[in-house]
């Protein structure tokens, strides 16, 4: 069955082509039905591949087709099936099919319904293509394609100016990272003597044969790893390039669930995991990854504490959780980072879809206009609760297993600073997600007009919620001490990562209890402040006005970027424009004017007197003859 893996990305592509050809007038049921069925087949296929690959020997399988010859270098395209890739296929296709189903309810009645599905199919294809790439170049192509799909979908409601701006921002900010990835890729290509292939790169790295000019293997490895990581920072919205993700929430909510929570933003984490042998060879790069991850986890969690927009809270939560994954990868806990990616995909997609269900019901994203929706939206409420508990890391929900393992790994490696960063972030996480839960689902309505008519969506919206709630609750059990760390052993089969998983984490009961208690404390605090009717939050905000303002204004990072990068960029642009207008254009202008003036002067020689022409011609002939005689040196 693994021979059929090529069908997995091609089925959504077929869906895309079908919708492209059938046009805008395609009935909603057809557009959604075709997409769900095709992606559903992909999903089943990738599940089969995932389970069949289990006992396979290390290395997986690769199918390559020759594509390009550049000088002496050959570039292939194809499919590389490793255990990591198989896992990613399952995550992507499973979340995709549920989101595609959910979207039918959420986007119902939209004028460009079939276009929306067209983009989603293209995205699913690109993402699946990304995770099976056998070389960096193919990965980069798909990397840009998912970026393009993200741009199109964030700006799907382009007639809203905020959406158009957010789309541009997401594209441009990730572009900064992509440039890093591109440069890193070219460095590796040159350093290996002309290969984009992952295995070739890893071989060169481990044999210390990378070299380029004066740079030796170690220096080049570190530089390339940092540049590749810059790409991951952009895509996975890590500090300092995280600013695009909250703005991307202007897109339709299913898009946020699929692209900006479960799949595309995880591509950065996937990239680091895929290139893990490269990072392993460079301790400075690994440390950078860990610290960027840890700082991002805490920073985003602190910002999420005070946001008023339900989707923005979850967006910052996504940034924070991606930070955990980077942290895990950075401290060498390769399998744990991937494990957290796996569980996070489910519970974060769930939280977004549940938020989408709420927004669909009350038509606002402001937390303080909601309230008391638990009775009207019971399915949404309970599934949101499952997702929130998973995110908060409460036993036995999936997030507990993955997040706790990461913290334990940091503790056992002796990275105390990282451990505390993660733990404080975990406390904030539990607080902010239950703040959302209490504000939305419990208590009394704060805006009767909006909430009075709220009701659950049709089955296409509730079924994905229930499935995801089940997954968010249970997905953690693939990697528990009782199931013998199944996922870690599965990922160990990858030859590329075998060294990484060599030091398994020993669960320690006190640490587990401690982090659960921290999570419960966060929930308790959220209940005290928001679970009951009180003016405590307002008083607290007043008392802590400075920290509150910092968090509310996202650490003023957008403002800082505006006044440095944006204003600076505009300044440079103006300088270049002036240079172009006055210097470059000036030179050309002077040339043109000179010729013009010369023409003006010379026109007076055309006086109509044929004898004057004759004189000039005769004189010219004499000059020519004199020059010829002197030049050749001959005598008449």
């Amino acid at each position, binding site marked *: 069955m693994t021979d059929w893996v090529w069908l997995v990305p091609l089925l959504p592509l077929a869906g895309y082509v079908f919708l492209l050809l059938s046009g805008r007038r395609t009935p909603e049921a057809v557009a959604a039905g075709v997409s769900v069925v095709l992606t559903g087949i992909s999903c089943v296929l990738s599940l089969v591949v995932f389970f069949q690959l289990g006992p396979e020997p290390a290395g997986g399988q690769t199918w390559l087709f020759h594509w390009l010859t550049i000088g002496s270098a050959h570039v292939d395209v194809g499919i590389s099936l490793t255990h990591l890739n198989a896992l990613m296929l399952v995550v992507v296709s499973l979340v995709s099919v549920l989101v595609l189903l959910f979207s039918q309810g959420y986007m119902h009645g939209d004028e460009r319904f079939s276009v929306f599905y067209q983009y989603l199919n293209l995205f699913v294809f690109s993402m699946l293509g990304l995770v099976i790439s056998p070389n960096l170049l193919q990965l980069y192509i798909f990397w840009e394609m998912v970026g393009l799909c993200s741009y199109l979908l964030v700006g799907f409601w382009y007639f809203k100016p905020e959406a158009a701006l957010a789309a541009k921002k997401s594209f441009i900010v990730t572009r900064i990272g992509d440039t890093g990835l591109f440069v890193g890729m070219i460095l590796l290509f040159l350093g290996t003597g002309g290969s984009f292939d992952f295995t070739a790169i890893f071989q060169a790295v481990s044999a210390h044969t990378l070299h380029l000019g004066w740079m030796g293997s170690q220096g080049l490895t570190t530089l390339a790893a940092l540049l590749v990581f810059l790409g991951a920072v952009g895509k996975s919205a890590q500090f300092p390039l995280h600013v695009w993700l909250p703005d991307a929430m202007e897109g339709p909510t299913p898009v946020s669930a699929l692209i900006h929570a479960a799949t595309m933003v995880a591509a950065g984490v996937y990239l680091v995991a895929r290139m893990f042998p490269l990072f392993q060879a460079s301790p400075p790069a690994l440390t950078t990854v860990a610290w960027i991850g840890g700082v991002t986890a805490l920073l985003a969690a602190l910002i999420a504490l005070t946001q008023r927009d339900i989707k923005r809270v979850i967006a910052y939560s996504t940034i924070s959780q991606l930070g955990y994954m980077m942290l895990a990868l950075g401290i060498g806990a390769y399998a744990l980072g991937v494990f957290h990616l796996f569980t996070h995909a489910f519970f974060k997609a769930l939280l977004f879809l549940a938020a989408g269900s709420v927004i669909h019901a009350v038509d606002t994203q402001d937390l303080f206009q909601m309230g008391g929706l638990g009775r009207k939206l019971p399915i949404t409420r309970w599934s949101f609760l499952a997702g929130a508990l998973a995110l908060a890391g409460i036993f036995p929900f999936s997030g507990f297993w993955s997040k706790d393992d990461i913290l334990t790994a940091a503790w056992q490696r002796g990275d105390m600073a990282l451990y505390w960063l993660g733990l404080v972030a975990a406390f904030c996480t539990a607080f902010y997600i239950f703040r959302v839960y209490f504000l939305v689902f419990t208590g009394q309505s704060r805006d009767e007009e909006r909430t009075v008519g709220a009701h659950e969506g049709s089955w296409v919206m509730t079924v994905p919620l229930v499935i995801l709630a089940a997954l968010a609750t249970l997905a953690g059990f693939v990697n528990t001490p009782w199931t013998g760390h199944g996922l870690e052993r599965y990922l160990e089969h990858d030859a590329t990562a075998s060294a990484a998983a060599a030091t398994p984490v020993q669960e320690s009961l006190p640490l587990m209890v401690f982090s659960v208690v921290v999570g419960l404390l966060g929930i308790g605090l959220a209940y005290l402040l928001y679970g009951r009717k009180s003016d405590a939050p307002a008083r607290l905000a007043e008392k802590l006005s400075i920290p509150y303002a910092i968090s509310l204004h996202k650490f003023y990072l957008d403002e800082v970027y505006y006044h440095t990068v944006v204003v600076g960029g505009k300044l440079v642009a103006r300088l270049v424009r002036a240079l172009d207008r006055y210097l470059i254009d000036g030179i050309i202008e002077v040339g043109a004017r000179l010729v013009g003036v010369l023409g003006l002067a010379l*026109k*007076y020689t*055309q*006086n*109509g*007197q*044929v*004898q004057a022409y*004759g*004189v000039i011609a*005769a004189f010219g002939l004499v000059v020519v003859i004199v020059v010829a005689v002197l030049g050749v040196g001959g005598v008449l």
Partner: protein
Amino acid sequence: MDNPVVSVPTGSLLGLAAILFCIGLYGALTKRNLIMVLISLELMLNAVNINLVTFSRLGVAPSLDGQVFALFVITVAAAEIAVGLALVLAAFRLRKSTEVKDLNTEKY
């Protein structure tokens, strides 16, 4: 020298031709009357004829080719002067003048 014709040095002949040519050129460029310009052109053509005849005696294989060519030039010059005079006549009818400086409409 058993040549019955008095031998004139080549340099003198070429000098004569050059002087004749320059007089013709000077006339063609300075004379105000169109008829005089045409006559000056004839002078220049005849200077060329003298050159052709002079050079025909020189070379590895002296022949009559140059002299034949000179005859051709004379013939063609006759035709040319006919056309030239016709043009001058037409110009005179148009402008009531045979002055060169009056034919100056083709200017900027």
